[in-house]
């Protein structure tokens, strides 16, 4: 399986987009390294999914349904959300059989 964290020889940290502070810092043309790897879809979010670990039964339905995919499984088997890519669609919260995921309005 392709590890998206090392696509193009770049780790996700290295691939983090520069967040230009002034217009001069932007590239002349709208180009970006990689695609959604560095264009964080997390910017789109209005509501953020928050997992209540005590309710989670590790069925991984959320992991399967997340379209981005922004949900990953930690070494201890617990699911976690990568907020850099989670666009806040709420599918995970809708699909979770134990209602372990709540969509919370995000203050930015």
């Amino acid at each position, binding site marked *: 399986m392709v590890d998206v964290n090392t696509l*193009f020889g770049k780790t996700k940290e290295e691939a983090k987009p520069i967040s*230009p502070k002034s*217009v001069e810092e932007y590239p*002349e*043309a*709208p*180009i970006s*390294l990689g695609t959604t790897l560095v264009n964080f879809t997390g910017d789109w979010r209005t509501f953020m999914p928050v997992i209540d670990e005590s309710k989670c039964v590790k069925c991984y339905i959320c992991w399967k349904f997340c379209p981005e995919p922004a949900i990953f499984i930690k070494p201890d088997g617990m699911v976690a959300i990568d907020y850099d890519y989670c666009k806040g669609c709420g599918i995970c919260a809708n699909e979770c059989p134990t209602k372990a995921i709540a969509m919370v309005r995000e203050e930015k």
Partner: protein
Amino acid sequence: MEYKPIKKVVSGNYAAAYAALHARVQVVAAYPITPQTSIIEKIAEFIANGLADIQYIPVESEHSAMAACIGASATGARVFTATSAQGLALMHEMLHWASGARLPIVMVDVNRAMAPPWSVWDDQTDSLAQRDTGWMQFYAENNQEVYDGVLMAYKIAETVNLPAMIVESAFILSHTYDIVEMIPQELVDEFLPPRKPLYSLANFEEPFAVGGLATPNDYYEFRYKIAKAMEEAKDVIKRVGKEFGEKFGRDYSEMIEKAYIDDADFVFMGMGSLMGTVKEAVDMLRKEGYKVGYAKVRWFRPFPKEELIEIAESVKGIAVLDRNYSFGQEGILFNEAKGSLYNASAHPLMKNYIVGLGGRDFTVKDVKAIAEDMKKIIEKGKVEEEVEWYHLKR
């Protein structure tokens, strides 16, 4: 190498094809549409005869033609295409992709009236309707300017990374033959070195995406960059036009070509081939004692606002000749010119004459009649009918 022009008797369309050949374009994608077709036919002939190493991409529509040009240009190639009227309209969506991705594609548009009613004759509405797509626009007066315009456009476009459109009149230039001084290949190569692209999709070592999604947080800045490049293009245009003049004897350092401005009561302003008629008429009117001049707008985008203000400061009136019309407002050049002068100190009397739509003949006699009308306006000191449909059968 000393410059000795190669004189050829060619149509405006062939002048465009030769210019593309001399600019060493690498990719051409186009769909035939009257009266543009013979540009592409000539290029096909160059390729068939082994004169040019051009990749020709056959497509099924103008929308695809521009899409192919965009893809090729994004790999770093020098790209050419040509179209006309309905074809240009079909390209509209893609024109934004070209300028947005900052690709210096050069295209010849053979100015033709929009249907219905179906027409294949001259009218500037097709190209002016593409005013806001981020393409630079040069209006050629004659076949020589078509040739020179294409060569200069590549140099300018590749400096500011914006696409450029060279506009020539349907049939008046596209299909009539005239002497065109062409530049020997070695000198063109000196003037126009190979393109140095801003980025290249053919760089497989560092993959990247072009034109991906920009959130509201970033889109704005990319638009500003285009606006700034357009503004910078004014200086580049003047510099390249001057260099062209020094090297090849035809100076294009002014975005508005003008004459007799200093002591003129009023001037004729317009674009494209109709200004050839105006220039001829103005010379005659001068001999008859009329204090008239002309201002031929060569580059419509970027718009030469500063040069126009300078002209406005020294004349009492401007007769704007528009071979186009924006429904619900007025002639497009008239609208632009008036707007440009709003905050200037000079406010000459301005009248808009809608002329020559759909190829209606516009002659020296017509220029004289308009001069008479303008003379009366200057004497009265006011414009009564702001927009006049000059040829209308009444």
